[in-house]
């Protein structure tokens, strides 16, 4: 496997920018804590998107100016935020009724491992302190489309896209699409299908760094992002 060096920051930015293209104007979207939250920074001005926060807010706005900070208004990552015009507040039970009831069009979440059948692991590593799953196990069953964004390989250079997940699952058969620094891969009933390669990566390089059989789409777009 060739060793390539990319700037970590620009890699994450690249993933976020590509992930933004999953968001359709007029849709309701939940962005997971961490890297997925950053996708919001790239949403194009002409798209009308309403972001849901599972702690009880439909219509997350930008970060507040200093004088606007309200300690009672946070997102699920516990960051102070604002609410857009037309927002709604509600309880956690209503929030997860909304999530489980498949009212969200899309959720973009982080991942540790994804399997061929769409299993997702993203909440615990055995032997390490377990902090909890938060809302992830509900969200993966709720949104109409689940997109996982993550680095293609672990810090140790191991594939995270696998035939079977090794880590305890967050959900079974839940992932629709994976976006990494190297590729966009769909989970289909026939297994993984490569839809796009990122700039700087060949089809073979993506295949090599994937731990399961990777079909190549007839509509494959190379160097797509």
């Amino acid at each position, binding site marked *: 496997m060739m060793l390539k060096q990319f700037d970590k920051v620009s890699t994450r930015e690249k993933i976020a920018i590509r992930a933004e293209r999953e968001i359709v104007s007029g849709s309701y979207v939940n962005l997971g804590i961490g890297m997925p939250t950053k996708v919001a920074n790239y949403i194009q001005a002409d798209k009308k998107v309403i972001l849901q*926060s*599972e*702690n*009880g*807010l439909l219509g997350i706005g*930008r*970060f*507040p*100016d*200093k004088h606007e*900070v*309200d*300690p*009672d*208004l*946070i997102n699920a*990552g*516990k*960051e*102070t*935020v604002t*609410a857009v015009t037309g927002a709604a*507040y*509600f*309880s*956690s*039970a209503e*929030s*997860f*009724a909304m*999530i*489980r009831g498949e009212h969200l069009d899309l959720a973009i979440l982080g991942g540790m491992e994804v399997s061929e059948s769409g*299993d997702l692991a993203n909440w615990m590593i055995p032997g390490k*302190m*377990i*902090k*909890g*799953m*938060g*809302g*992830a*196990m*509900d*969200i993966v*069953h*709720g949104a109409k489309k689940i997109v996982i964004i993550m680095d293609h390989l672990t810090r140790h250079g191991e594939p995270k896209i696998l035939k079977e997940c090794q880590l*305890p*699952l*967050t*959900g*079974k*058969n839940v992932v629709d699409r994976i976006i990494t620094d190297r590729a966009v891969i769909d989970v289909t009933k026939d297994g993984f299908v490569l839809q796009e390669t990122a700039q700087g990566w060949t089809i073979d390089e993506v295949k090599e760094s994937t731990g399961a059989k990777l079909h190549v789409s007839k509509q494959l777009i190379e160097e797509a992002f």
Partner: protein
Amino acid sequence: MKEIYQTFTEAIEKMEDGATIMVGGFGLVGIPENLILALVESNVKHLTVVSNNCGVDDWGLGLLLKNHQIDRMIGSYVGENKAFERQVLSGELKVELVPQGTLSERIRAGGAGIPGFYTPAGVGTPLAEGKEIRSFEGKDYLLETALKSDFSLIRAAIGDKHGNLQYAKTAQNFNPMMAAAGKVTIAEVEQVVETGRIDPAYIHTPGIYVDGIIEGKQEKRIERLTVQQED
């Protein structure tokens, strides 16, 4: 019509060792700050605490942990404080992790006379171990049971003398369901108003769920201050 407490000590004086308590809030937002402080002072022990999170080192439920008052914690995301990990590793603290949506629905069920319900969350994960799995229209779900408490400690923005409550913004979170799931529910409010001041159409928690209220000054600590970057 409701008990209006004058001191936080008095508000929680019926709590006994071994009680199961629910504590409202998401992170540090919407937590009953002063009721928690009074609990620390009361030194009641062996508590089972149901709360989405478990506070931070020096605030919220973290203070109860530090004081070794919690035997068992039921939440969805915990361990944001050092005492937590230490006490789990030493076996002093038992933890039950529950998906956030399942947690909020189990609490709602507790207050709503629903003993059990099915949810997709957790199917195929370690959470499903020992739980009944049942298929509805070809999809698998887990059976989850209701949660109730001996005492629910919640926080609201405004409360009237009939116990009707309104919450502020995202400080609502788990508070309304916990109000209904408590055998005894005490609401710490930022402001007590005369009955009739809250529009009956915009009451978040009807007074029937509330046993006592007390006005308290909130610090409202911010866990993660994020602001617009100045140009």
